[in-house]
């Protein structure tokens, strides 16, 4: 499978994700934000980091870059798009995903391993996971507090578009297991066609037992399937 990772000034998880993709046998290419053509790809990843320093609003300025038009075109033609952390923020800024990511409710940057539940394992991104599987995944963000309006939230629930929810070790989804204040403990969502996934946790950080665990690997393996 061919993948492309879009690199913005200030992206800083671009190397991490490319290491993960290559480890999982993707044929990966890095794409500079000023490029105007996308290499042919089955998966486009918008990596984490601080594109444009997170200045103004996280993701806002990257959302206006040239390459984004190409990403939107690819998305509309069904290409898989994965936005991780800052990538998720960029996807909401471009409108490819609805809602927005507000400041964490404690107004602090949060880096820790949290538990998330795979709420829908019937997608191209999650088919390798079991239903309701609990993963331990690292989060690292200032603005991960997902917010959206009532209508969209209903739609997310009704159409099964919530990808992951923060939970505790046992899978309980509650205030205590919600690190950043996200509405309904949402950690990741899909677009209605389910070819776009935006998520705050970093699966690329969880592919190596020496460093963490391998809970993120199945996400990439699902895509390969």
């Amino acid at each position, binding site marked *: 499978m061919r993948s492309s990772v879009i690199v913005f*000034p*200030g992206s*800083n*998880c671009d*190397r*991490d994700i490319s*290491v*993960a993709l290559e480890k999982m046998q993707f044929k990966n290419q890095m794409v500079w934000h000023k490029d105007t053509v996308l290499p042919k790809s089955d998966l486009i990843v918008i990596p984490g*980091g*601080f594109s*444009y*320093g*997170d*200045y103004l609003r996280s993701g806002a300025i990257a959302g206006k870059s040239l390459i984004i038009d190409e990403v939107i075109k690819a998305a509309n033609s069904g290409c898989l798009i994965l936005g991780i952390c800052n990538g998720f923020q960029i996807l909401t800024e471009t409108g490819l995903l609805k809602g927005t990511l507000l400041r964490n409710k404690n107004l*602090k*940057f*949060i*880096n*820790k391993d949290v538990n998330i539940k795979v709420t829908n394992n019937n997608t191209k991104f999650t088919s390798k996971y079991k239903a309701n599987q609990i993963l331990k995944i*690292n989060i*690292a963000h*200032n603005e991960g507090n997902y917010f959206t309006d009532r209508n969209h939230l209903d739609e997310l629930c009704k159409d099964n578009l919530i990808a992951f929810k923060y939970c505790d070790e046992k899978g309980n989804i509650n205030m205590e297991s919600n690190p950043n204040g996200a509405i309904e403990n949402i950690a990741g969502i899909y677009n209605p066609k389910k070819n776009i996934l935006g998520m705050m946790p*970093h699966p*690329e*950080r969880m592919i*190596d*037992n*020496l*460093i*963490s665990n391998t809970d993120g690997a199945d996400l990439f393996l699902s895509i390969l399937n």
Partner: protein
Amino acid sequence: MEITKKIIEKHGLKLEEYKNIQKLMRRDPNLLELGIFSAMWNEHCSYKSSRLHLKKLPTTGNQVIQGPGENAGVIDIGDNDAIVFKIESHNHPSYIEPYQGAATGVGGILRDVFTMGARPIALLNSIHFGSPEHPKTKSLLNGVVSGIGGYGNCIGIPTVAGETKFNETYNENILVNAMAVGHAKIDRIFYSKAKGVGKAVVYVGSKTGRDGIHGASMASAEFDENSDEKKPTVQVGDPFTEKLLLEACLELMRDDSIIAIQDMGAAGLTSSSVEMASKGSLGIELELDKVPCREENMTPYEMMLSESQERMLIILEDGKEDHARKIFKKWDLDFVVIGKTTNTKKLTLKFNKVIQGEIPIDALASKAPVYDRKLVRKKSSNSKVDIKKFGKIKIEDALIKILSSPNHSSKNWITEQYDQMVMCDTAKKSGSDAAIIRIHNKDKAIAVSVDSSANYCKADPLTGGKQIVCENWRNLIAVGAKPLAITNCLNFGNPENKVIMGEFADCLEGIKKACEFLNYPVVSGNVSFYNGTNKKNIFPTPVIGGVGLIKKLSEPVSHKFKELNSVIILVGKTFGHLGQSCFLKENFSVIDGKPPEINLINEKNNGETVLELINQNLINSAHDVSNGGLILALSEMAIGSNLGLKVEKNKNLRNLIEFFFGEDQGRYILEVKRNKLAYVEKILKSYNIHFEKIGFTQKKYFEIEGEMKTDINDLFKINNQWYNNY
């Protein structure tokens, strides 16, 4: 404009020094020149009070590629891999504006590392605050922590280790020391020595503003008394631009375009150009009208003294200009040729083609003042702490007191604000004895730790100096790394005070002795004097940052117990030394006595043997015993692992308090599988190591036979509440 006494004073120069300047210049300097002298001759840049002492430190060894004198130290870790590292203080700015002060401190030390061609792979910090009850402490703590995180997180370099301490000695003067560690290829290290005449001097990075112009600000008040806007402005960090600068520099470093490169740190354009010229025995000519400026009407004086961040000076090989410009353009950064190297050995400053100032380079560098300051050495006290003087206290209560104290509470509240995982090579995060960072794409890893012990250093600077080196060494050993070299940040009070200077000399002597004995050379460092107010100086606070090597990273040993019913061994002799202990401080508010002695022979022997045991895979977990003594170390192992332990009462124990809370040095706790015990004991005996089996791991309870039995979840809670309630 005439240089008056007042102007000289406001530039922080002594009258004697000014006379010296006149002599070196053979005329009166103008204001621009005076400003440049003040920047180069101040303590921070010239090391005038410390230089004579720093010279005594051991700085060489097989592992050393570059010792002190460059932007950062460089050591060899094999296979053409080098580690580049340095620590630096940003104390005063952080007290004025904690967020920006700490942030720009991180930015500055990162530049020191990537200037040398290294990609930064880890950040550490040592931060010291006043007492938690002091009205400023809380907001300083908040600001500093979010500033450190704000910069490191944004630029995408993991902040993996550090230390946070509270002590009223820092009430009016906090310490913020940041350390950066980078990785480079040995054959692609870049230095700041200029070579060749007529080479282009290039300015890259952010534009120059009126940030942090110190003497300048003061002097300019003379021109325009009522202009508020001319006050020195606080430097604001821009980690986003630094990220671009980092990538652009590393990109340009892939080929041989660069002759020399130097970041603009303290004293900005002045010190960077002078340093490069001085090292190359050359001159440098700058056309200041070409300097990219952020504000209108900036004067040569302001440009030369500005401390705007995220800037670098590069000397380029002939014919490489277009290639280099293209790279910086790609990263949206300024790139301007602002001058050239000359053979005049002078710093020549032009503005619109007219010479504004000209100073012999050696007057600014090699001929800068060096002082052999008067000092008095402290007589070490012989008072022994008699614990019978203090009331009876239960072991459990004393432990709880320590575990819940600000200095010993879990630092999760802080470390969760730092991205520790970005770059995906952090094998062990903060919270352990040392952090472990894998070398990207390799099997090997480095371990890093920063350590200080101001109370020990205050009570006995010589012993304290040795102790911090040894503790740092132990921390690396405990994670299975072979300690290679250190960097040090020497935070002291006013060097013009004999007592302070005595503390400085003695601490340094201690550092030197330990480093020499352990073959643990100093490859870089920084000195910060004038911490405190004139009457109240801070405790001497040298900070040691150490780097060690793990040749093959398998699952790293940690301080967390691994399994039930394994044997706990205490390595090293316990005398029960309570002087300067955390037991006395936290329980009785007593700070008294001598710090524990350092026996370098035992230190080395114990450490090397523990390292060998770890390398042979004979150990489940390991932890060094430091502040708080055996019991605190044990509780940290239990809390971290969710496994309990039982310490069996030994008949020979004289005094339980001394045994559990004594801070004797050179000790480690090891967890050993039962079936490996005999072998481990054999090895320990063969090296003549003193050790005792003190107990075993068990479920759920932290137990000392006949004394206490506490659920470790409770200990965990006790250990985790302070920050959240603060």
